[in-house]
């Protein structure tokens, strides 16, 4: 028990991190704040004050590493008086393995729709593992896109994306345009788009780039893809074949060789492509600010104007000039004053002004991991008879939780769930495990005799909210503990832990 309590304070301290990126991003960071403030001023809205250190720490941890900070990190961070501590925190998080894992999970969710099918689940794991590798090496974003368009061998994770879509040209067209271009051309699959520029011919012209991809029979049930010499798409219910056509109308040049997919890839990652980089920038913005400069976040139709047009253009150019460096882009955004604002109410606030920080729902994965971290539960994964331990993110309990909690809306500024999910959150695992004396590592450590109740209350607030308890909480929680007999102390601590674990402040990113 004492060991555990001590372990609570002995998490590895910060490692020194390279900071070469910080200098390059500073001017753009300042420019973003300038443009946002100009807009706020013209709207006559005062921005919210800066968030407290704890609020900022928790936010950055959730956004950049996918879960809440451990108590020891929080204590160090709150005690640190260095003016560079926010920058150092961002750098450390961006360099952490958790950053790559979190981004891989986030992008896997964007790329593949949720599934309960066992085989499809394996595709998802394989794609996610590949993405993790890309983000961990900070692969150029344009290179990642290119690999999706031209994937062939099974070392290329994107073959699993093709497999999940059954290699159907119309689905590959609909999904790659949504994911990488931010264009919803699939509505033109069956008819001309009623509210947009897209015609049925535009859709099938784009789909034609995928008309010749086929699966190659290969050993051991592994997937590999090949581009054949033949294969066309036809307008539905007609015999009319459609030749490849880029969105916007131009046809690929015959001067260059290569397969149809290679020709599409060249166009997609060209520096003057009007969609690819914008889509990535809008994603990164929404990832940190809860909504995009363009909303909905994956609909960058020319008819859908950004809230800050100049900012959108400048950031897009900046991203392209940086060599499509996603990590640099996130660093630049995370260092803005706007990202560091409090989430508290502001007079005259409208979401598109970014006057205060949007309050975001956690993804099911984030929520599950945060609850486990709060309870200091180390999950044993897989059945004990099997030799090789399974990766944590495939634990059955975690998969079931994610399946139950998964949402459909892209708007993360609402808490989109129902009473059955709320019941499971209140009474089921992992909250029940994290707050019960038999299973919660955190509760066991809190029982250590050398802690006073005041210290225990402090630890609970630090673990759940990454901040010191308020005066009100100190009083309310201490009173609650004081009324418990020595025998009931354990349960009373569990009650406090439950009350914070089920609260909005814990379950949301604010």
């Amino acid at each position: 028990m004492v060991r555990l309590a001590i372990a609570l304070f002995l998490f590895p301290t910060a490692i020194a991190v390279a900071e070469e990126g910080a200098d390059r991003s500073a001017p753009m960071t300042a420019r973003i704040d300038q443009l946002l403030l100009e807009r706020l001023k013209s709207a006559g809205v005062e921005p919210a004050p800066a968030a407290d250190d704890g609020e900022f720490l928790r936010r950055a941890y959730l956004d950049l590493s996918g879960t809440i900070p451990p108590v020891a990190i929080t204590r160090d961070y709150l005690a640190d008086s260095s003016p560079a501590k926010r920058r150092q925190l961002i750098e450390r998080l961006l360099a952490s393995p958790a950053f790559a894992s979190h981004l891989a999970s986030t992008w896997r969710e964007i790329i593949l729709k949720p599934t309960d099918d066992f085989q499809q689940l394996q595709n998802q794991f394989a794609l996610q593992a590949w993405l993790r590798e890309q983000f961990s090496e900070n692969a150029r974003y344009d290179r990642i896109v290119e690999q999706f368009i031209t994937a062939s061998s099974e070392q290329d994770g994107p073959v699993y994306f093709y497999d999940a879509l059954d290699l159907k040209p119309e689905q590959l067209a609909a999904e790659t345009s949504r994911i990488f271009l931010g264009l919803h051309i699939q509505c033109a699959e069956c008819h001309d788009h009623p509210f947009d520029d897209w015609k049925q011919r535009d859709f099938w012209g784009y789909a034609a780039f995928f008309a010749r991809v086929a699966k190659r029979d290969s050993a051991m049930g592994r997937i590999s893809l090949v581009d054949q010499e033949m294969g066309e798409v036809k307008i539905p219910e007609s015999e009319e074949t459609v030749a490849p056509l880029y969105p916007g109308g131009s046809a690929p040049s015959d001067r260059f060789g290569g397969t149809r997919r290679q020709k599409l890839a060249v166009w997609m990652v060209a520096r003057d492509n009007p969609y690819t980089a914008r889509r990535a920038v809008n994603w990164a913005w929404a990832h940190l600010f809860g909504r995009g400069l363009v909303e909905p976040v994956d609909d960058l139709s020319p008819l859908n104007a950004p809230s800050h047009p100049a900012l959108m253009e400048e950031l897009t150019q900046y991203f392209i000039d940086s060599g499509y460096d996603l990590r640099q882009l996130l660093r630049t955004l995370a260092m803005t004053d706007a990202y560091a604002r409090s989430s508290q109410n502001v007079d005259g606030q409208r979401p598109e002004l970014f006057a205060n920080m949007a309050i975001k729902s956690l993804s099911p994965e984030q929520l599950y991991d945060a609850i486990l971290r709060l309870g200091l539960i180390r999950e044993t994964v897989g059945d004990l008879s099997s030799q090789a331990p399974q990766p944590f993110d495939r634990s059955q309990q975690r998969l079931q939780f994610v399946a139950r909690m998964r949402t459909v809306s892209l708007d993360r500024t609402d808490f989109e769930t129902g009473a059955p999910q709320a019941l499971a959150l209140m009474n089921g695992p992992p909250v029940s495990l994290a707050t019960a004396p038999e299973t919660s590592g955190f509760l066991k450590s809190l029982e250590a005799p050398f802690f006073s109740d005041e210290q225990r209350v402090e630890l609970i607030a630090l673990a759940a909210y990454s901040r010191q308890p308020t005066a009100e909480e100190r009083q309310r929680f201490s009173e609650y503990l004081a009324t418990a007999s020595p025998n009931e102390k354990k349960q009373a601590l569990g009650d406090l832990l439950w009350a914070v674990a089920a609260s909005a402040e814990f379950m949301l990113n604010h």
Partner: protein
Amino acid sequence: MAATDRRRFLQQALLGAASCSWLPALVQAAAEQPVKRRCIVLWMSGGPSQMDTFDLKPGHANGGEYKEIETSVPGLKFSEHLPHLAKQADRLAILRGMSTKEGDHIRGSYLMHTGERPGGPLRYPAIGASLSKALGDPQADLPNFVAVNPNAAFSQASISGGFLGPKYAATTVGQRAMAGPASPAAGATGLVDLGVDYLQLPGEVSPERAEARMKLWRGQQESFLALRDAAAPKSHDTIFRRAVRMMNPAAAAAFDLQQEEDAVRESYGAGRFGQGCLIARRLIERGVPFVEVTHGADGLGWDTHQANFAGVKALSAELDQGWSTLMRELDERGLLDSTTILWMGEFGRTPQINANAGRDHFPDAWSCVLAGGGIAGGQAYGSTSEGGQEVVDGKTEVPDLIATLCAAVGVDPATENISPLSRPIKISEGAPIRALLS
């Protein structure tokens, strides 16, 4: 949706239903009816054998062991193992011409629950989600969509809100774990006990402590929300408070079978299906608009690749008792006329009997049943060939089946929900089958 909203909504739906001349009148009638409409799906996990339930082929080599029996409707015959349902045949419409295209359990379950084949870009909501959204009151203490004994491994589609979101997913009821105090009744009679998943506090938390926890929780909520007037914290607070209302004794009592006399519980059958039908009756009585009860959820009960005849006999006995008692009790309470029942599974089973005295998956020609409110009972709609291999007439595909169910409960199947890509999606693309509607 509140009753008045629904009425306005249905009246608006009339404008969109002009293509089908009699449907507007039907929808109009439903809209003007103050009666609340409800729906129960009886889901036969594994795929029930039509040849041994509602479409027997006595005398044919495919026929198997069972005899046919007369029902209350002259000329309409059922299996000998469904004697109580046979007496209520005037309330049942047998669809003998079902023909579908999925022969895998998971895919078949998805198709039957959504009307769509799996694999497209959209995840469609279960019919329980769309219909409870159309019929239910979002402010009600009880959930609008309850699934009893769902098969989590093979039938996720049956409880999913699909693109409507988790808000519309089913609240699930399962066999109660042994954690709580065992009921004296269970010990005495062997009655299975069912309960809402996660409605109970974790084992070690007493009701007094739960109240103390909620008080602490409310304190946390109030101080956080006071400064943050935003969608996410407000939704979190609303939804959690609603879940707490479900835990309150009055609402939770709806699921508490111990409040029924043992004799009543026994009349439904002691097993999970019978007790599930009793829960369905209790929920329908309390205004819950959609309940699905699964039969054969331990594994895939109706998946009788082997020893079909012993298996189906036992399953039929439970089915006959639970379903017939449910209809009788709904009728006694005046609720059968406003409650439509749909009996179905993933697919039917092969007419030929295999080497293991079993029948395999067979989507080409099989049976579903509609019963109760809004349904023209006492008929077989469609028929199959002599050996049961193919549909001869009344061929019915899933979208039309779902559209018929919608029409029977007074919901226009063309009612549109908006997908995440802002595309309007109809509850069903099919057309109701006039002959099946009363």
